[in-house]
């Protein structure tokens, strides 16, 4: 049997072992959950690619946000930072947060490479419009 992608193969393997599928596609979710999924995969626990598949960690976080279970976000964030440093494939997350820390501790930033977040970085303005995320009524 041939598989188109390793991810799919992996999913299939997990299912065949008699466990629940650990990964989830956002297409199955309602609009609001989908937007929450976007917030989680792009801002809270950002990764380089594959924002359309939610893994177990994303799902737990989303569950807790929706059901009002208070989470220790500092723990989640620092764990993600350490992981990004440790694993070779990971891209580096939380640029803005760390830049704020750098300013907070009074590091001299004179003459360093400097960028600024622009409107392009705003989730709400572009992506929401592109995905036609407008909610009608209270459903």
């Amino acid at each position, binding site marked *: 049997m041939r598989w188109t992608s390793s991810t799919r193969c992996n999913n299939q393997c997990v299912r065949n072992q008699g466990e629940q599928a650990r990964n989830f596609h956002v297409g199955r979710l309602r609009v609001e959950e989908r937007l929450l999924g976007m917030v989680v995969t792009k801002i809270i626990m950002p990764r380089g690619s594959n924002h359309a598949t939610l893994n177990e960690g994303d799902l*737990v976080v989303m569950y807790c946000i929706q059901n009002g279970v208070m989470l*220790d*976000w500092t723990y989640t964030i620092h764990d993600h930072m350490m992981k990004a440093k440790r694993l070779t494939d990971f891209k580096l997350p939380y640029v803005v947060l760390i830049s704020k820390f750098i300013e907070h501790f009074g*590091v001299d930033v004179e003459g360093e490479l400097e960028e600024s*977040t622009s409107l392009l970085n705003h989730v709400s303005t572009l992506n929401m419009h592109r995905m036609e995320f407008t909610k009608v009524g209270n459903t």
Partner: protein
Amino acid sequence: MPRRSRVAPSDDESSTPPTSSSPNVMNQGRLDIWFEGHEDRIQTFLIEINRKQIILPKVIRMSRLRAKNFGNLEQHLKAQKLKTFLELSGKVYPDLVKVFYANLKFSNGILKSSVKGVEMEITRQAWKDVAGLRQRGVQVRKGETSAVDEFNKVQ
């Protein structure tokens, strides 16, 4: 006798500053400023961190959520005290962020790093001042989800 004298200079070699040892594209002077001349940290930086890409930051505005009829989601996020963190925007220093990652360490529950010789200890107070986050609540990370009982029941 002359052979024995040849052994001695090897001691000398290790103590000389290895400035010429790393032929690389980065400007050595800048690296020295960033890492205060710690050669081992510079090597970590060049080998592990420097080639990694940075994820483009994303920002979300709570007011936009409300305007687009997602008031429910906005309230959930606010209840988690995530408002300040999600709305962080402004200037970004890509190089210094890489330096931060190269020096990043975790010990005794506190993240520690140093940039340009400034020691940074990200304590409870720093988290609160910068990102508005508090160190309390259930501790959850990827691969360790047992803390939330109800979730496992749902699955």
